[in-house]
């Protein structure tokens, strides 16, 4: 953590990926994440890596499948409609237990939608997206620094469980410029290739096969049970949440990503006005920090929760699961690419207080 530089979110994320050991990128242009491939098209060849501008999102994610099969630390990035196109490949990657990192700089939808920030892909990110019984590890950065740190560690995290990591950002985190400390460059020659990775040496009983096809129901069910066990381990080990001033809070605001940062400002404003507000910001969306909501909901101080999202209400369903009916959960959202200010959140909460 030596250098401190001013960087655009997308470029900082791309550099963090390289420093975390990423040596393969395939992607397709889409706003608002274009700086990621643009940066890597120059940067990856400098470190002996591979950059491919694929002919489609579909092809790009299947290149990730191929690169991950042979043990490369592989990254793709896109934005909402492009991530939809990648879903088939993501399901295959999850089914074949391949690690990789996927960045979604979420824009507004549905359909072609708009190019401004949004959080309408929450369900797609944490509830599946593609077909079949699988999960991704979903991380939601609220600052460029947090995005850098997450991306840097995401290859290790993905390889540890052989589960793809999805960085769920939004147009803001991609486009904003902030001062960041860039982590040390990993020496990739010292990162051991996973022993399951193909090297072409296989023959007879030591052949390696990357596959997600299990035609016998009993065999596939065993695989599904195995994956579910891995997802439970992830829930036990990897959940992360930021709690801010929740100890004496009467109103708990909850938001993720850049909205979590706006909500934190709202908490400070509300406190200056004498309203004891607090914040729960899930850092990991899968695994989701249900326990933080259970704890807050059981507190005598807490009167209600307010979920704030750039959507018509998606994470609120998980918030309600955590709160489990113990306290009311209100919703304040903007969509279409509109972003609320801290004052908007404050006004919403004060209007409900009266």
């Amino acid at each position, binding site marked *: 953590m030596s250098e401190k530089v001013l960087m655009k979110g997308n470029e900082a994320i791309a550099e963090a990926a390289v420093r975390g050991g990423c040596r393969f990128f395939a992607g397709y242009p889409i706003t608002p994440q274009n700086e990621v491939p643009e940066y890597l098209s120059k940067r990856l060849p400098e470190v002996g890596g591979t950059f491919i501008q694929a002919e489609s999102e579909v092809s790009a994610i299947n290149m990730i*499948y191929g690169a991950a099969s042979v*043990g490369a630390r592989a990254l793709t990035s896109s934005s909402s409609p492009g991530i939809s196109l990648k879903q088939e490949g993501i399901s295959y990657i999850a089914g074949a237990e391949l690690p990789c990192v996927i960045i979604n700089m979420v824009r507004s939808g549905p359909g072609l939608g708009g190019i401004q920030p949004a959080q309408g892909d929450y369900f797609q990110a944490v509830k599946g997206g593609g077909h079949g019984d699988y999960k991704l590890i979903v991380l939601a950065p609220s600052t460029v620094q947090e995005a850098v740190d997450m991306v840097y560690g995401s290859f290790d995290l993905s390889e540890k469980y052989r589960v793809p990591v999805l960085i769920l950002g939004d147009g803001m985190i991609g486009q904003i410029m902030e001062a960041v400390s860039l982590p040390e460059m990993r020496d990739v020659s010292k990162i051991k290739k996973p022993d399951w990775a193909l090297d072409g040496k296989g*023959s007879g009983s030591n052949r390696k*096969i990357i596959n997600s096809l299990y035609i016998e129901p009993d065999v596939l069910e065993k695989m599904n049970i195995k994956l579910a066990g891995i997802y439970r381990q992830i829930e036990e080990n990897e959940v992360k949440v930021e709690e801010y001033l929740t100890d004496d809070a009467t109103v708990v605001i909850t938001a993720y990503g850049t909205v979590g940062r706006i909500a934190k400002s709202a908490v400070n404003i509300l406190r200056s006005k004498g309203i004891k507000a607090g914040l729960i910001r899930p850092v990991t969306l899968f695994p989701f920090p249900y326990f933080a909501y259970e704890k807050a909901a059981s507190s005598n101080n807490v009167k209600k929760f307010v979920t704030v999202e750039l959507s018509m209400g998606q994470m609120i369903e998980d918030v309600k699961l955590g709160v489990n009916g113990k306290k009311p959960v209100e919703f304040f959202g903007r969509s279409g690419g509109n972003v609320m200010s801290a004052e908007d959140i404050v006004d919403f909460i004060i209007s409900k207080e009266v």
Partner: protein
Amino acid sequence: MAKVFQKSSFLTDAVLHYCPGCGHGIVHRLVAEALDDIKAQGHVIGIAPVGCAVFAYNYFNCDMIEAAHGRAPSVATAVKRVNPDNIVFAYQGDGDLASIGLCETVHAAARGENVTIVFINNAIYGMTGGQMAPTTLIGQKTTTSPLGRNPAVNGNPIRICELLSTLDGPSYIERVAVYDTPHILSAKKAIRKAFENQVNKKGFSLIEVLCNCPTNWGMTPQQSMDYIKNDMTKIFPLGVFKEV
């Protein structure tokens, strides 16, 4: 006694699931023997498609990847870029390569990726039970063109070799057939040359193999071989379409 024949080291002992008389078994053997010929042991990665050859990873005795439908060229691209010293091949059927994966096929070829693609054209979707393929002949009956393929409503067959040979990327494009012994031997020669080109870093090679599907064509194996010779080759002429 002198050994006059032995099974290719690139075939496993698994029993093939293919229908009696199907040409996939022949082409598997040709691919395996071509890999033997170039002494590729210890550095081969194959990509299996979705379709009848979906289980090819059980049959080729090398590291294998099962790709999503039509995406084998993208998977092969990445594997070869990351491991340039491996011999990388994709084995794909007509629905996989010429329909759902046509985009990936064209662009891997246009990029001149140094991989080998073996394309089985049997003019039908075999695994799913005989539906119309992008290469189904005009008049050919399938379960989704029960009265025979009618160009007015079903469109026309796609000639992959001709299409790809217009691109600058490919180094070698040839169409072969496996309806009799001389043609099987020519097919093997073509597949071997495609692998040799990869060794010599010449770039993208694709060998289209006109193949039979007696089950879904509703023919005996012999009738189906005659159909390749008499009908398929009229629409899909054999020959070298590009060689650099």
